[in-house]
């Protein structure tokens, strides 16, 4: 292998031939002299080679791209995985997590795999299905192993050697981490002479005689079955035999262990600086600390450019041909190379200094830029923000202005769609399911009413405080949650509450995470407010302020981000088996319903040629269904496996017993059946993403249960199939493939594959890092006022290309003409109008038979007519005067078309201004009239009370009423009672009057009694009619 690469680098083998070979065009030549190696061996070798080469340079960034097959990165990078780390070491294999050792599969058999945590699935399994299982799992340290044994069993059983009994599957196939990448199926351990320098020497395991290469070599699939169960051989004398040979590695291992311990004690939330995967032992004397004083990368200082070009080309071909296990990891690796910090020259003590192709920052950046250039098509699928960060990366600019320009262009054409999402909403009350008839008793109904309110109270409190330091769900809300849940039990309201809970979960978790961590999908509300450009800056600002470096790496573990946290904590705290059971029922039902939802697949859509509007609708539908299904599935998995979760991996015996026991009862979801059906019906694009969410919640033992084991097998098979089918395409892992084919919007992609955001974070971290070093490379972030921006109208577009003075003129003239118009109409029409209205009112009230309703109608009609007249008059005024004024004020050379357009805009603006004033003011005057005419009942009662209180005393000398005053009050009473507006009030007015009447026994009241009873009588009889 090394020889092949060597010969390529030495130009002994033609590059094109090698590339063709990689592309599979010269399969037949495999037997040729030069290329007596398998692609499947070569690719991992190459990837490892690149990691090794750059190991001294890559000293930055919390998340190093997993060295494809062997990385132990995330393990060390993530403090949170400490427990899992512990688990792993409990397997009793001498080897621990040096990167080297990880190259070998320590546990291809179930025995050895028992330490597998929940969420444990290989990145391949994961990438096959979608992100999360493996990719998020942080299991890369093992996950990336190219485990020959594992692969063999699996592949042999399922694909290549159907004769193999499925029982063999268990051996390796359970080791999901070991699922090999596409095309890696046939590997034979060829004892090619290893290149001394780059060969990993395991501290533990592996056959001693193949140690240098065993990292990637694996038991050939083509080998007889006998070797398949021979997993134990991996645990043979390897460690003891190997260890003496690799003191260097041992030292390295110790170092790693120490740093691991250090990290475990540090806060898990904090990024661990300077962690990387130096797969090559760091030689004594070599410096890995980034040197702040070191100069930036310089194209002129690049050494070995031809070799780097060659390497880049081979590497890119591997990526393009999808020979790498996970394209995503490679992109991350390249971005790390791009953003690597300067490292002081190392290897001074090297006895036999090998060619250090990626040993300095210049070469790293050069290589990275080469690859990025080559893989531009791939890059162009990234989101705008990432593209922008890339384009603005000064290194890209220095090394390849062409790439920078391409990136800038791509950024512009980036069609990231943002769908409006609603902010947190409650679950609407639905009489059909929520009213009294749905409850067993009044009490249950009443209790649920309270429970609903308590639930939201808890939710709001959580929203307010959960981010505050020291706040804990259990301490703050625990007792209230349990009290409420215990009431559920008392009232038998579990199914109601489970439904509410589930709906609220969907409500709050279906959109882009409202309360998610920064760097998540952009908040559409915010986007609408500040515009996309400012949003990018805002987000970056936020990122820098809140989480300047919180890179979780390309393979973050499954989590409950944003609002999901509330629901998880609630369930954990409530710890109510009835509630959980009802929830499981509900979640399962909704999931399977969603799974059946009609979403046209890409084929169907293109067949019918229904792109465009319908296609857009489909996408929306698809994305909303997908996101909901994923959340539901995650919670279904969470609840289902909650009883089995343990902090420590169970021992082998316990696990075996558990498997035996648990395989007797039916799993909550028949994953295999769902999977088969979705593949059969070509609905994997929807089903697999949510299934993966479900499976990511598995406990330690879960993956060993027959049903889930088979499901993983199916997933793997499917992944291979997809990759095979698309082997000539530029693709991400399958979910992305499917998504991209379906041209799903980017936001969804990033929501489904949050690890994609890590590119952006890495680049952003670089920006902030370089600023801190050089004292302000960062572009200043100018605060943007959050004024809502409307969509640009044609009017705005018109002004866009005109001199600013034109706009100012138009706006000024419109303002003045509008104002003059109002004054003109006020002076003429309105005063007439008011006078006329008042007269009508007086006349009407003065006449014998007062019909308030008719009077009102006639005045309204009058005002309406007049109002229409006024508007007409205003329009005329503006269209006469505005164009004249504009014409005079604009420069003479203004073209006729521009002039006409400006005139019409001015006229329209002036008319709008005038008319809006007129209509609001005419309405006002109308209201005033009305208010004058029919006093409010409450006012009348207040007045009556006033009169009465003076009547009953105590009163002063001045406090007296004339008979006129009393009669005028009685008039008001009458009017009020007759007003059609307040008829609904009568029911309350009557008793009031009744009280007044009943308690009045003075002379003055006698009159009132008389009048009021008369009025009441007439009213009552009219009401009765």
């Amino acid at each position: 292998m090394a020889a092949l690469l060597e010969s390529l680098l030495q130009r002994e083998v033609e590059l094109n031939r090698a590339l063709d070979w990689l592309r599979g065009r010269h399969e037949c030549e495999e037997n040729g002299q030069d290329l007596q190696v398998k692609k499947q061996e070569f690719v991992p070798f190459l990837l490892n080679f690149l990691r090794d080469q750059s190991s001294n340079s890559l000293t930055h960034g919390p998340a190093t791209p997993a060295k494809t097959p062997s990385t132990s990165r995330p393990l060390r990078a993530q403090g949170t995985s400490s427990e899992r780390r512990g688990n792993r070491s409990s397997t009793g294999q001498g080897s621990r997590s040096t990167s080297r050792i990880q190259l070998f599969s320590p546990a291809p058999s179930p025995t050895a795999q028992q330490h597998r945590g929940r969420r444990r699935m290989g990145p391949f399994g994961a990438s096959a299905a979608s992100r999360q299982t493996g990719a998020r799992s942080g299991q890369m340290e093992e996950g990336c192993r190219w485990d020959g044994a594992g692969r063999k069993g699996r592949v042999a059983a399922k694909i290549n050697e159907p004769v193999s009994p499925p029982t063999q599957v268990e051996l390796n196939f359970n080791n999901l981490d070991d699922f090999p990448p596409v095309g890696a199926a046939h590997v034979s351990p060829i004892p090619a002479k290893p290149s001394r320098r780059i060969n990993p020497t395991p501290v533990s395991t592996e056959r001693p005689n193949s140690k240098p290469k065993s990292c990637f070599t694996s038991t050939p699939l083509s080998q007889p079955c006998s070797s398949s169960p021979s997993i134990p051989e991996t645990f043979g004398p390897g460690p003891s035999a190997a260890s003496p040979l690799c003191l260097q590695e041992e030292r390295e291992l110790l170092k790693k262990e120490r740093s691991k311990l250090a990290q475990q004690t540090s806060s898990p939330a904090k990024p661990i600086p300077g962690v990387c995967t130096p797969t090559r032992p760091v030689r004594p004397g070599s410096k890995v600390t980034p040197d702040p004083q070191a100069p930036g990368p310089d194209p002129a200082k690049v050494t070995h450019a031809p070799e780097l070009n060659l390497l880049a080309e081979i590497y890119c071909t591997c990526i393009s041909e999808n020979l790498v296990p996970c394209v995503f990891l490679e992109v991350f690796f390249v971005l790390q190379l791009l953003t690597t910090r300067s490292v002081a020259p190392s290897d001074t003590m090297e006895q036999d200094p090998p060619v250090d192709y990626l040993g300095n920052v210049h070469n790293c950046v050069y290589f990275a830029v080469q690859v990025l250039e080559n893989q531009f098509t791939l890059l162009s699928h990234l989101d705008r923000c990432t593209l922008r960060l890339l384009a603005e990366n000064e290194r890209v600019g220095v090394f390849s202005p062409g790439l920078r320009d391409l990136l800038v262009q791509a950024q512009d054409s980036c069609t990231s769609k943002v769908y409006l999402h609603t902010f947190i909403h409650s679950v609407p009350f639905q009489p059909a399911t929520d009213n009294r008839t749905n409850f067993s008793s009044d009490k249950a109904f009443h209790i649920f009413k309270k429970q609903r309110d308590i639930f939201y109270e808890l939710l709001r409190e959580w929203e307010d405080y959960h981010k505050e330091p020291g706040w804990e769900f259990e301490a703050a809300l625990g007792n209230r949650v349990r009290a409420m849940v215990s009431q559920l039990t008392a009232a038998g309201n579990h199914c109601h509450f489970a439904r509410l809970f589930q709906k609220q979960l969907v409500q709050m978790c279906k959109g882009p995470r409202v309360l998610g961590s920064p760097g998540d999908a952009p908040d559409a509300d915010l986007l609408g407010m500040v515009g996309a450009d400012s949003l990018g800056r805002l987000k970056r600002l936020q990122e820098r302020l809140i989480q300047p470096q919180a890179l979780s790496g390309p393979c973050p573990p499954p989590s409950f981000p944003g609002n999901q946290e509330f629901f998880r904590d609630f369930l954990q705290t409530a710890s109510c088996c009835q509630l959980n059971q009802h929830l499981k029922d509900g979640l399962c039902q909704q999931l399977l319903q969603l799974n059946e939802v009609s979403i046209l697949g890409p084929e169907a859509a293109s067949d019918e040629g229904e792109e465009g509007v319908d296609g857009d609708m489909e996408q929306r539908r698809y994305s909303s269904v997908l996101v909901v299904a994923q959340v539901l599935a995650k919670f279904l998995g969470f609840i289902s496996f909650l009883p089995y979760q343990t902090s420590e991996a169970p021992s082998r015996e316990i696990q075996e017993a558990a498997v035996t026991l648990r395989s007797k009862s039916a799993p909550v979801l028949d994953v295999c059946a769902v999977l088969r059906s979705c593949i059969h019906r070509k609905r994997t694009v929807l089903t697999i993403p949510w299934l993966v969410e479900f499976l990511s919640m598995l406990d330690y033992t879960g993956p060993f249960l027959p049903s889930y084991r088979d499901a993983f097998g199916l997933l793997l098979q499917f992944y291979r199939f997809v990759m095979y089918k698309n082997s000539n395409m530029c693709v991400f892992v399958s979910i992305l493939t499917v998504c991209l084919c379906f041209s799903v919007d980017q936001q969804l992609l990033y929501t489904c594959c949050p690890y994609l955001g890590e590119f952006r974070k890495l680049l952003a971290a670089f920006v902030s890092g370089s600023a801190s070093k050089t004292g302000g490379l960062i572009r200043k972030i100018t605060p943007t006022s959050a004024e809502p921006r409307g969509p640009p109208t044609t009017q705005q577009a018109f002004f866009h290309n005109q001199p600013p003075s034109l706009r100012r003129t138009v706006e000024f003239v419109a303002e003045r003409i509008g104002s003059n118009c109002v004054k003109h109409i006020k002076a003429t029409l309105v005063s007439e109008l008011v006078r006329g209205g008042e007269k009508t009112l007086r006349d009407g009230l003065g006449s014998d038979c007062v019909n308030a309703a008719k009077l009102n109608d006639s005045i309204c009609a009058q005002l309406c007519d007049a109002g229409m007249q006024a508007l007409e008059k205003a329009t005329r005024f503006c269209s006469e005067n505005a164009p004249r004024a504009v014409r005079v004020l604009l420069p003479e050379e203004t073209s006729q078309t521009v002039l006409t357009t400006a005139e019409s805009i001015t006229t329209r603006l002036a008319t709008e201004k005038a008319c809006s004033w007129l209509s609001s003011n005419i309405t006002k005057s109308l209201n005033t009239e009305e208010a004058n005419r029919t006093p409010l009942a409450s006012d009348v009662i207040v007045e009556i009370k006033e009169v009465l209180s003076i009547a009953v005393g105590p009163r002063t000398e001045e406090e007296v009423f004339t008979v006129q005053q009393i009669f005028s009050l009685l008039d008001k009473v009458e009017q009020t009672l007759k007003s059609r507006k307040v008829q609904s009030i009568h029911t309350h007015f009557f008793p009031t009057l009744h009280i007044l009447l009943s308690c009045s026994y003075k002379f003055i009241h006698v009159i009132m009694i008389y009048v009021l009873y008369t009025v009441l009588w007439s009213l009552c009889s009219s009401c009765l009619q």
Partner: protein
Amino acid sequence: MKICRAEYKTIAKFIEQLRPTRQCMKILKDRFPNHSQSTLLSIFSLEYQKRMKRTLVKHQDVVEDYFQRYRSEAKKRPSDPVLLELANEVDLSPSLLARLLVERFLEEQQGSVSSKQVLNSMLKEPSLIPDMQLAKHVEQCTINDCCYGPLVDCIKHAIGQEHEEILREKLRERNLSFLDENHLRAKGYDKTPDIILEVPIAVEGHIVHWIESKASFGDEQSHRTYLNEQFWSYWNRFGPGLVIYWYGFISELDCQRDRGILLKDCFPTDIVTLCHGSSHC
């Protein structure tokens, strides 16, 4: 009318010394000429009620003493408003004092405690009180009290109804279709705001599904109570909504807009309907 917290405190402080008489409103109005009469009355009413709630127990302990004092005073000057004077002297709402004494009186006369209904009906119709003199004094109390008593209850009720009607009227004017409380109850809703809009609107950029009309001033305490007992419950069932405090509110309380509860002191003008676009264009 929105009033800031500090200003409200000033008003509340001033109110501490006032009695619920006809004259107090004039005094209040003269002192705070910038605020409308109805807002001031509403604030007075709120603050006075807080005061009464705080001190009622204390008065209940000395009812016997009040009763004896009333008896002797009424004997001395039967035509004077002695009960009202006593109420103002001990700083107890005249209506509440009247109620306590009628209760005490009936207890003495009948030897047993009277029911609430009997008491209520006697306060509403003092002529039912067996003692004509007491009846007259009680009437003076209930009629003069501007914060408590059957009349005030009626007025408050009427004001509430009127403002709901005004709200409905405004909605009809703008062609916004809605369901009112009665519709909702008929459908079996467990909590019912005054109005549920059939098609939500946006008010000042905030979505509104329901509207609650409050014909009172929104002070800290009453708003908190309303939030817990009504507004959040509405939000929990119908989503974001609008509360109109027709007599104003403490401006700082309008802090839940982003959370889905919007406060206004009048019917909003900035309304955007979903289907017709901006209604004021």
